[in-house]
Structure formats: C-alpha cells, structure tokens
C-alpha cells in the first residue's frame, strides 16, 4: 500500500462519491420539501445525457447543454404537475404514488430507448479529455476535477439557499408542517414546483458530469439513480450534508474494496454499508441531531 496507491484510491473514491452525492442531493431537495421519493431522478440524469448526444451535432456545445438541462427540468416539473399533483388531489395512498413514479420511471427509460435507440454513445465532457498525471499512479482527468468543483459549489449553494433565503426556509417549513406553512403564507404549490425544478436541475447536471466518463444511453440512469437513493438513506435525510457524507463514504468504500480487497465484492459493499448504517444508525450518518 504505497502513498501513490492511497492517493489514487482517494481521488477515484472522491470522484465516484461526488457523483453519488449529487444524485442523492437531487433526491433530497425534492424529498425534504415534499416528502416524496421521486424515483424518476435516475431517468432525469439519463435524459439529460441522451439529449446532449442528440442535440450536440446540431448546435454549439453550450446551447446543447442549456437546452438538455432545460428539457430535463421540464420533465421533472411535468412529473410533479401530471402525476404527483393529480394523485394528491385524489388523496391517493402513498403506495399508489410510489407505484406511479416507478411506472413513470420505466416509461421514461424504455421510451427513451424506443425513441433514440438502445445503443450507447459518447457524450464529450465540458472539461475536455485531458488528464493530469501525478507520478505513475495518480491519474486525474479534467472532467473529474470539474466534478469536484461542481459538487462543492452545488452543495454550498443548496446550503445557502436552505439556510439564508426565504424560499429555502419555506421549503423546509413546508416539509415539516404543511398546514402551519400555509397559515404563515407559504404557497405549497410554488414550493413543490421549486423543489422539483431544483431536483431536475441537479439531476441534469449529473448527466453532464457522469456520462462523459461512462456513456450516454437509455440505461445509464439506473446505477446513479439506485446509488443516489442508497446514499441519501446512508447519509440521512435530515440535511444535504448527509448526501455529501454518504456519497463520499460509499465512493471511497467501493474503490478501496476494489483496490485493496477484491473487485468481485466492490458492488456488494454499497448494500453492506446500507445495511450496516440502517442497523447502527437508522437515522443515517448525519442524523436528525445535526438538523436541530
């Protein structure tokens, strides 16, 4: 176990963890304001990446990026408008809502496959294809450095939004006590629209960060979607910091398992960590205490 190998595990684990953390944050911002676990988040990541591939040949890179992120936000808002709001108006059971969202997830996934084809494509990364090499064992693509920066900025922005702005406080109050929030003038519909819009925006960004290092295709939202959800549970649903801590923990554990133990078990570690956390700290690594 050399310094070089430890540094590479840290760099790789941090990169994988940042992707998981951002995916978890996209779940968190919706759940924290509405109590809804939007299972379509993984598909939002995928749609953003696939639209990027579809649009890039026809327009400049920044325009394609903005349009694909915009379209993904619209998808997220439509989920709220056409599924969640209608079901809530009918006072549908929670299980009905979960089933509807799972159904929508499948429709979006396979609908994208039917529309754009089942093969995977390369999405060029916003940071280019260069690599910084330190010694013979640490390799840092520019795209990974961009992932670190965007993750730090996004979490800082969400923190400021939720603690320092009226909108952020409205989001938190609406989740804790919707009736009380209405009495003090919080518009619950507006809060929900903002939460879904923000969740869609973060998921769309993940698409542009993750796909250039993996692939763009109709199935690529599955892993970040599942891992994002696991990370939100591991980190705890009380604050966005939980998503960050959970994501980086899982990323580091996965990569370290592959490097120092056996890659045959690295995928299973996500579920072992999840079970361990649920058993020892059901409220997550950053639990309710930090919220107070």
């Amino acid at each position, binding site marked *: 176990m050399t310094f070089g190998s430890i540094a590479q595990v840290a760099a790789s684990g941090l990169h994988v963890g940042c992707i998981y953390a951002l995916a978890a944050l996209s779940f968190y911002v919706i759940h924290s304001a509405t109590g809804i676990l939007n299972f379509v988040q993984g598909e939002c990541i995928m749609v953003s990446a696939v639209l990027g591939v579809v649009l890039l040949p026809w327009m400049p890179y920044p325009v394609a990026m903005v349009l694909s992120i915009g379209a993904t936000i619209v998808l997220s808002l439509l989920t709220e408008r056409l599924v969640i709001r209608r079901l809530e108006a009918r006072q549908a059971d929670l299980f009905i809502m979960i089933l509807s969202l799972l159904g929508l997830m499948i429709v979006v996934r396979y609908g994208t496959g039917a529309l754009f084809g089942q*093969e995977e494509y390369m999405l060029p990364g916003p940071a280019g294809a260069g690599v910084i090499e330190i010694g013979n064992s640490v390799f840092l693509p520019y795209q990974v450095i961009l992932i670190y920066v965007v993750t730090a900025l996004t979490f800082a922005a969400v923190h400021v939004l939720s603690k320092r702005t009226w909108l952020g406080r409205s989001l938190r109050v609406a989740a804790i006590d919707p009736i009380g929030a209405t009495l003090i003038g919080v518009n619950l519909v507006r809060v929900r629209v903002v939460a879904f819009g923000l969740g869609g925006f973060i998921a769309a960004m993940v698409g542009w960060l993750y796909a250039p290092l993996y692939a763009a295709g109709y199935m690529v939202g599955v892993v970040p979607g599942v891992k994002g959800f696991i990370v939100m549970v591991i980190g705890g649903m009380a604050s966005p910091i939980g998503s960050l801590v959970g994501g980086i923990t899982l990323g580091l554990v996965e990569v370290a398992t592959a490097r120092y133990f056996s890659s045959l078990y690295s995928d299973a570690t996500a579920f072992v960590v999840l079970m361990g956390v649920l058993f020892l700290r059901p409220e997550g690594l950053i639990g309710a205490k930090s919220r107070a």
Partner: protein
Amino acid sequence: MTTRRRFLAGSIGYATLSMAASLPGAARAQTAGGGKPIIIGAHGDRAKQASYYSMLYKDAVETFLDELNKKGGANGRPVQFMFEDDENSPVVAASRVEKLAAEGAFYILSMGSSATGVAAQAKGEELKIPIGSPTNTITALSQPLRHYYFRMSIRDDLIAAALVEYVKKMINNPRVGIVRDTTETGLLTSDSYIKLFKDGGLEMVSVEQITPGSSDVTAQALKTKESGANIVLIVGGSIPDLANYVKAHKGIRNDAPMIGNYLFTTAAFGRLTGSASDGFLFVDSVYPERPEVTEIMSKLIAAKGDRFQNNLSAVHAWEYIRLVLDAIGRAGSDDHEAIRNAMEKTTDWPVAIGPPGMKLSYSPTNHDLFTQPQQAVIRAYKDGQPGPAVPWK
C-alpha cells in the same frame, strides 16, 4: 364521464395502431405471391440490455424478408415474420417459444442473449420444433448435440481455443489477466474462459470485476497491471463498463495487449473507447472484406440506416433466415420434423460467414457451422473502428 370516454376511445385507438404497427411480418407477407404463408417466429429483447443486437437482427431479418416477399416470396409463398419480446428473461423466452409454436411457427429464431437462448432451446427441444440462433455463442447450446437446435455462430469453446492459439503465437510465456463485468454473460463466460485457457496451458494471473455503472475503474486497471499480466482478456455483456476498463487500461499506460470475443464487433464499443481501443484484438466470425458481406451490409445500411455501420454480426441474421427458408424449401413440407431433417442434411451450402470460401454442412452428429478454431476471424481495432481481418501468424 366525458374524460373517461375520451380516455377509452383513445386507448382503443392507440391499441389498434400499436397492433397494426407490431405486425410488420403480416403486412409484408401480403405483398408476396399467393399460397399459404411460411411462418417464421423469433424471440428477442425489444427494450432491455440485449435489445441493441436483438433489434439489429430483427431489422436484418425483416429487410431480407421485405426483399424476398417483393420478389414473390419463398418458392412462391409469402413469408410471415412474428417477433416476440422475451424481455431478456429466460423464463419469458421459454413462454414466447411456446406461444410462437402454438401460433404455427415453422421455425424459431433465437435472437436474444445467450441466457434466453438456452431457455428457448430447451423449450424448442421439448416442443420438437426446430430452433436456432444466428449469433449465440454459449457452448452448451449445441454441445452435446441437441436434436432440434442449429447454430451459425462460433461457439465459446472455439473462440477460447482460437484466442489460446493466437496468444501463444503472439507472446512468449503468456500470463493472462481477466477483466469481466457483472452481467450474467460476463460471469458465465469468464468462468468458462478461465477453464478453457487453463486447459490450453495458459497461466491465469488475475481476475478483476468492474463495478457496474462506475465512472472510475482505475483500481481494477492498476491491479491488473500489478498482477504482471502480459495479456488481458475482456469479457462480459455491458459495453459501457467494458469500454470504461479499456480507457482506464490505456490511461494508466498499461502496454499489455487486450483481447476479447465477438461482443466487441458492436459499433458502440469503438464509439465509447475512441483511440483507446486501438490494437484491441477480438475474435469475429465474419470476414469484413468478403464481397458477399459488403453486399449484405450495403443493403442493410440502405434499408435501415447507419446504425448497421460496423455491426457485421447482422450478417448472421441475414444468412440464418436465408438458410432456414432454403431448408423449408428443400423439406417440401411444413412439418417440423421434415424441416429439421432438411436442416440437418444441409451440405456444402455457401455462406457469407467465416473466412472466404467457407461452406456450411450440418450432419446427424454436428449442428454447428464452425468446427475448428482456425475458422475464426481475428480482427484488431484501429482509429476506434474494427479493422480488417488479421492473418493468423
């Protein structure tokens, strides 16, 4: 009430349109000459992980039948093609074979993954209906010999034997590292390759597994390099995961050559790896320079577009349906047993698969086109594209 009625009307309209759209074979059959239609059934994956090649083969078969039916069909009879979605599930695949048999299919094409192919083959054997795959490679499909199953692709044991022979000629004292993904295909084939490579006298030094969906597999690439492997075999079914390893392997400057089976003929592999796949050697079963191959590919690209570009495995589907219809013509009967017997009696049938001049001969003891490792076509990637056949050294 109005909304409900509109929804109902819309649903009926949508269902009607969907049914019309899902019967391309029936529509095509009407353009051919008279006579009772020849019904060909097929199962494959319409939307899941195996769909990228299933749908390619479906389109290749449909293009062939379009052309045939326009010319009057097979021996003056229209050919009707029925495709069933197996959802990439062995259980569903078996039920689809049962359904196709009940609907009167003369022959069933197995166009999904190897795992669904195994289930479909067992069901075909049980129902005594001739069945076969244009591209499935898993050895157990035809070894030991199955009475109703006929194969046109190269088996895994022959691919492994071809790789062993080629590696021994290419490298002194080869030490093999294996990198696999977590798909069923990856786990099954890597175990079988490890055994076949060991039997072939190669030293196996490492087995690494790619975390599915991971955007960073540097850990696996570094471990493979540190194991001292001087050649790395890549196996699996998830092209993005495998392509990611190839990029990491080149990224950490590991000079050990990489080899693979014919999964890597898939165009997505070259697209995702770019120049990182340069020099990647893989076993194929189609010789790209053969004029017959070029002609088939031109027809497919003209009919279905650029997604056929570099996807030479579609030639298998084209040639397989051509063979089946030829056998049905030779059988002189629509009876399953007669068609099976005609398939088995196929001798010296010129086929566009394999090296130039290859001819297909089945027999009561052999239902495989490929019988020798040397019939395999070795190819190498260049500039992110699968290159021409590499001569056996």
